[in-house]
């Protein structure tokens, strides 16, 4: 097998805090191959967004990469100068955010914003950039793109704005697109359209995708592989279909079991299988396995020993950070 497009190893992201730094991401490793779609799933505060921003070296003030390696096409991104990193951003790795309204500049037309990347990165002339921008807007499904090109962001709906953001991200045909909750602010019907668009573009451009979401079903429907994060760490990783059918980590199992179901109503007196407790605070991660205070099968050793990712049922591709994962999966079957 050839080297992966992106190889993240032991990533640690810290945020300045009182009394000391807080590790929002604590030893995260994964790879993405050319053209592959990886879904990164987890609840608020689990470190999934910080992971994406670290890949771009765009952490907000107070945040820093405290450890690990980020190799993109064999080059360690952490060793690049700011200027070298800036040239890769947008051109090789691009990003789409949750709030398209915040990602667009209200003072520039959408054609200007989409064309800007081409002028900056590819040295296109203004006219060329505008022409290419209109073609991109057409490609992402903006109706009457030539006429709408001179619209300002506020004149568009949320779904249309997200399409513009995708056009911007795709302007330089990046090899990897990071999408952080790209459809969370949108209606379900529009969400389905945007996901379909991302899938089409991925096939067309051979682009890899890191899709970040709190919604397991959504990433499961759009990605080849899934990684589940909890409290700053990846607790389970594997092919999407396998992971959803045979979840191994008690947290993944709990997330799936607690979901309201569309195909079945609750019987009288029946309850959802909620996970007790709340997501822990990064300032006070529990010791040992960080899920142990909420885990239905936790044992004494879980309070002190940090579980490593290990093969589930001798699988070569499916790993979970729980020594009792096989047992739990077997017992539930």
């Amino acid at each position, binding site marked *: 097998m050839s080297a992966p497009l992106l190889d993240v190893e032991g990533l640690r992201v810290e945020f300045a805090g009182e009394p000391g730094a807080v590790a929002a991401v604590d030893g995260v490793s994964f790879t993405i191959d050319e053209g592959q779609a990886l879904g990164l799933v987890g609840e608020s505060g689990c470190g999934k967004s910080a992971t994406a921003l670290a890949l771009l070296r765009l952490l907000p003030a107070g945040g820093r990469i405290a450890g690990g390696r980020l190799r993109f096409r064999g080059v360690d991104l952490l060793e690049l100068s700011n200027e070298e990193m800036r040239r890769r951003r947008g051109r090789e790795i691009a990003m789409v955010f949750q709030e398209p309204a915040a990602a667009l500049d209200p003072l520039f037309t959408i054609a200007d914003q989409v064309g800007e990347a081409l002028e900056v990165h590819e040295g296109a002339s203004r006219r060329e950039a505008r022409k290419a921008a209109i073609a991109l807007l057409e490609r992402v499904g903006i109706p009457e793109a030539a006429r709408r090109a001179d619209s300002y962001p506020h004149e568009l709906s949320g779904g249309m704005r997200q399409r513009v953001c995708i056009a911007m991200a795709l302007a330089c045909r990046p090899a990897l697109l990071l999408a952080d909750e790209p459809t969370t602010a949108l209606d379900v019907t529009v969400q389905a359209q945007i996901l379909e668009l991302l899938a089409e573009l991925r096939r067309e451009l051979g682009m890899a995708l890191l899709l970040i979401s*709190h919604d397991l079903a959504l990433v499961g429907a759009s990605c080849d592989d899934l990684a589940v994060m909890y409290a700053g760490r990846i607790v389970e990783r594997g092919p*999407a279909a396998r992971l959803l059918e045979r979840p191994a980590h008690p947290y993944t199992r709990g997330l799936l079991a607690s979901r309201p179901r569309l195909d079945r109503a609750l019987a009288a007196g029946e309850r959802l299988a909620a996970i007790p407790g709340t997501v822990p605070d990064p300032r006070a991660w529990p010791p040992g396995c960080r899920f142990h205070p909420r885990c239905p099968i936790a044992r004494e050793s879980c309070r002190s020993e940090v579980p490593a990712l290990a093969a589930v049922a001798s699988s070569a591709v499916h790993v979970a950070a729980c020594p009792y994962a096989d047992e739990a999966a077997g017992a539930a079957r």
Partner: protein
Amino acid sequence: MRASEPAPLLEVRELRVHFPLRGGLFGRARGIVRAVDGVSFSIAAGETLGLVGESGCGKTTLGRAVLKLVGVTSGSVRFEGQDVLAARGAKLLGIRRAMQVVFQDPWSSLNPRMTAGAIVAEGIEIHRLARAAEKQRRVAALLEQVGLPADAAGRLPHEFSGGQRQRIAVARALAVEPRFVVCDEAVSSLDVSVQAQILNLLLELRERRGLAYLFISHDLAVVRTMSRRVAVMHLGEIVEIGPADEVLARPRHPYTQALLAAVPRPRSDGEPPRLALQGEPPSPIDPPSGCRFHPRCPLARAECRAAPPPVRTAAPDHEYRCIL
């Protein structure tokens, strides 16, 4: 559309909420937003009606209109036989006590300067339900009932997590012993693992207290879990209403079918997406002629443009507005 059932708890008839759209130099009306446009339904005591639809379909406005929190253009709302919209003074206060609401955002719906205890006690004070010692006892019992720690009463909203804040909002609604609660996207801003806890709490309260809910959500699976009956709203109108098992398993209206098709689920390779909707919700300012769904409907015919669709019956108590 109408519904049967003898003497419902809540009965809404031909409700319309139109807002003037102002703009320009002198704030002249430029048009009318038909947020709710001729909606009828009823809810029995102890029953939950789920209300689904995309943003802008009017579901939030409908929830507020039922509670008399927005001005109503025409139509009627009757609660236990009383005319809610005409009620004033003591009568309105009595109705307000019986009808409560839990909003989506637990960050903006709680006063940041009031302790959880004071927030929950406010309703008890307004409705003069208990005096000092008894009031404290009730507040403590309510906070315990929604699963908050014993010391919660003295703490301010910012000291709680999102899920805990939503529990405070539920305790506040319950404090005045309502018989009907509007839940407007009450779990939408919560993490998946916490969402299930709050849904379980609402289920338990319904069983223990016989509460009826109007449960508004964009999430069809959440609505299926909570509701025996479901109404689907599109551009100010209810386009389909009936038992949840019918509407969500055998949807008749193309819009309901499209909403269900848009729910992300793992698809096997090569399987084509079903009935994908083109375009976005049209504007309630100038709704399309005929069937308001026709510009986005994959099955639309010429006659759909001409006249509003008839109300059809698919099964007892399952109605939809479509010529097909």
